């Protein structure tokens, strides 16, 4: 699907991805993991890809029924590898915790594979999970 990268569209993107995952016979538990990961990555693109301005994002789902699924995001924003940032220190006590920085860390933990590539003028961000 092609959609404006805006957090007002998160629900639409999640619904679209769920529809495709269902067709790929993705177990419900894993669909929830994809939902969380999609919320995190699409939000990142909405906030950062176009410096807060509006811009397009295309989202697609591929996979093999009953085996695995991938969700791919493409945007034309500034080059940005979400997975390059250092993981946050999740052992810090409450007073020292920053509010944020956890989204991508969660994605890395929930998915089997995460990938980023700059292809021409596009950021291509992909997440993959096997069903068994």
């Amino acid at each position, binding site marked *: 699907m092609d959609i404006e990268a805006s957090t*007002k569209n998160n629900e639409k993107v999640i619904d679209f991805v769920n529809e495709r995952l269902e067709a790929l016979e993705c177990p419900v538990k894993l669909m929830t993991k994809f939902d969380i990961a999609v*919320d995190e990555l*699409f*939000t990142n693109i909405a906030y950062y890809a176009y410096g807060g301005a509006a811009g397009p994002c295309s989202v697609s789902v591929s996979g093999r029924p009953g085996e695995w699924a991938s969700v791919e995001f493409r945007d034309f924003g500034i080059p940005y590898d979400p997975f390059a940032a250092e993981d946050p220190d999740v052992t810090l006590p409450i007073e020292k915790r920053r*509010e*944020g920085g*956890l*989204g991508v860390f*969660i994605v890395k933990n929930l998915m089997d594979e995460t990938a980023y590539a700059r292809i021409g003028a596009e950021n291509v961000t992909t997440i993959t999970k096997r069903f068994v």
Partner: protein
Amino acid sequence: MIVNKYFEGNKLLVKVVGRLDTTTAPRLEEELKDLSSVEELVLDFEQLEYISSAGLRLLLGTHKRMQGNLKVLHPNEMITEIFDVTGFSDILNIES
């Protein structure tokens, strides 16, 4: 997301139903805006499907505002996994 609030004296019980993510976290934040008369805040997550980092940010901020007088009840398996991965299990007062 549905938010149900129950006041019992200075205690506020909030039942959150659905998903707590980028789309819905601002709505829960609005519901928790005025906690000036609340001494104990209890968030019942029994019917919460999942939480993303937008929800965690809200929990962290609320925990700080309540100076620790925040309890989270009945998180499901998915939410417990998120709490464990992010270290929130060590920060929050959670009753399963």
